[in-house]
C-alpha cells in the first residue's frame, strides 16, 4: 500500500527543492536597477578629464610662446593686443619647462581623444537618451526659478526640483557640453592653416584666426572655472561616494549623501 505514495513524496520533495533553487537564483539575479552613471559616461568622463588636463597645462606652455591676444584676422604686435597674458610658471606647464615644440605634441596627442571622445559620447548619449537629463522644464526657464536655485545653492542645498540635475547643474552642463567643449575643438581647428583651408567657414564663423585664438584661450579658462566648481560640488556632496560612483557606476536613485 505504501508503494504508490513513494513517487508522490519524491515528486513533492523535488518540487520543493526546485522552488528553493529558483529562490536562490532570484536572490542572485535580483535586478538592482540601472547604474547611476552608464559605462559610456564613466569611460568618457575619465578619458576626457585626462585629455583636458593635458590640453590645459600644455596650452599654458604654448601660450607662453606669444602671451598676447588679438581680435580679427591678424595680430602680431603686442602694442595692439587686447589682452596681455602673464607668463605661466614652469611648474604649471606640460612639459615642466618652456618648450613650444614638445608642448604642441602633448596638445595634439590629447586633442585626438578629446575631440573623438566628445563626438562619440554625444552620439551614444543622444542614442540612449541620457541627454534627456539636461532637458529644461518649462518652469526652469523662469528668472524667478533661477534666482531661487542660486539662493538654494548658496545654502549648499543641491536638491533637484525636476529630474536628476538641479537647475544650475543643468545650465552649466548644457553650457559645457554643447558650447564650451565644441568651441574648443572648432577654435582649435581654426588655428591650423591647413584646416582653415579645408574648412574656410571656420574663419568666417570666428571672424579670423586671431579671434579664434582669443576665444580658444578665454573658453579654456572658462572650462577651468567649471572644473573648480565641479570639484567643489563633488567635495560638498560626499566626495568618496561621488568618485566611487563615477568609477564603478553606482545605482540610480542612490545619490551619495
Amino acid at each position, binding site marked *: 500500500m505504501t508503494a504508490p505514495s513513494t513517487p508522490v513524496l519524491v515528486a513533492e520533495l523535488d518540487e520543493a527543492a526546485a522552488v528553493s533553487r529558483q529562490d536562490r537564483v532570484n536572490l542572485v539575479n535580483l535586478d538592482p536597477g540601472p547604474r547611476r552613471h552608464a559605462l559610456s559616461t564613466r569611460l568618457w568622463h575619465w578619458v576626457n578629464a585626462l585629455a583636458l588636463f593635458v590640453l590645459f597645462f600644455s596650452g599654458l606652455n604654448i601660450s607662453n610662446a606669444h602671451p598676447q591676444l588679438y581680435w580679427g584676422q591678424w595680430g602680431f604686435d603686442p602694442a595692439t593686443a587686447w589682452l596681455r597674458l602673464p607668463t605661466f610658471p614652469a611648474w604649471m606647464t606640460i612639459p615642466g619647462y618652456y618648450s613650444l615644440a614638445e608642448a604642441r605634441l602633448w596638445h595634439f596627442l590629447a586633442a585626438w581623444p578629446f575631440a573623438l571622445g566628445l563626438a562619440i559620447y554625444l552620439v551614444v548619449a543622444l542614442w540612449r537618451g541620457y541627454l534627456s537629463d539636461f532637458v529644461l522644464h518649462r518652469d526652469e526657464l523662469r528668472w524667478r526659478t533661477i534666482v531661487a536655485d542660486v539662493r538654494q545653492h548658496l545654502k549648499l542645498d543641491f536638491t533637484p526640483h525636476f529630474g536628476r540635475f538641479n537647475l544650475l547643474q543643468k545650465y552649466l552642463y548644457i553650457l559645457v557640453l554643447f558650447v564650451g567643449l565644441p568651441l574648443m575643438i572648432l577654435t582649435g581647428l581654426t588655428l591650423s*592653416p591647413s584646416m582653415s583651408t579645408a574648412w574656410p567657414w571656420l574663419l568666417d564663423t570666428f571672424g579670423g584666426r586671431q579671434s579664434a585664438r582669443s576665444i580658444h584661450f578665454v573658453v579654456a579658462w572658462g572650462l577651468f572655472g567649471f572644473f573648480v566648481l565641479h570639484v567643489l560640488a563633488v567635495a560638498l556632496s560626499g566626495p568618496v561616494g561621488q568618485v566611487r560612483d563615477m568609477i564603478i557606476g553606482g545605482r540610480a536613485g542612490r545619490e551619495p549623501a
Partner: protein
Amino acid sequence: MIAPLKIGRRGVVGALLTGLLGACAKVADSAPGGALLETVERWNKGAQRLIAKRTALAREFAPADISPSFRGNGNTRPMGSAYVAHEGAGFADWRLVVSGLVERPLSLSLDQLKTLPQRTQITRHDCVEGWSAIGQWSGPQLGHILRLAGLTPGARFLVFRCADDFSGNPYYESIDLIDAFHPQTIVAHALNGAPLPIKNGAPLRLRVERQLGYKHAKYLTGIEAVASLAGIHGGKGGYWEDRGYQWYAGI
C-alpha cells in the same frame, strides 16, 4: 573637525595634479611615450590630407585686409659676408640654384625668375608662436620652376637652402611634392608690391600657404630635389625640425 579634512582634500588634489604633471614627464622620457608623441604628427598630417583636397586654396584676402606692417621673425638679417656683399649690390648677382634629382639643373637670376609667369596672392602668415600677419606676395610658382628643371622619378622632397644661420647652423627647410606643386606655393620676390625687405627674406623666400611660418624658408639660395631627408643636417628635414618641431606644420 571640518577644517583639517578640507586641507586634506586640498592636499589630495594638489598631490594629484603634481603627480599627473610628473607622470607626463615620465611618459615623454620613455621610449614608447616619445614614439607616441611623434606619431601624433602622422595622425595630424593623415587627417588633414584626407579632409583637404590637394589643391584646396588657403584663404586669399582683399587689399584692405593687409596688415600695416609684416613682422620679421627668426633671423631678420643674415650675417654671412657673402650675403652682406649681395645686399650691397642690391642682390643683382643673386642666384637660385635648382639641383639634385632633376633632369636639367638650373641657376636662375632674379630677372629670370621675374620673367616666369607670376602669381600674386594676399595671404595670412601664421607663426607657430601664435601670431599672424597678412601680406601680398608675388613670384613664380614653385611647380613651374620644377617643371622647367624636370624632376626625376626618384624625387620625393624639395630641400630649401638658405643664406642665414643660427650660431653657424644653417637654416634649411623641406616640403613634399604635394605642397611643392600646390598652386599657392611660390618663390616670392615681392611683398606688398615692393622687393622683399631684408627682415622678410630678401631677395627670395618660399611661401607654403597651408603650413606654419617656419616652413616658409627665407634668403633662398637653392632648391634641391631629394629622395630622402635622412643625412641632410639633423635628418629631420629642417632647422626647427632638427630641434623637435613637427615636419608637417599644417597645424
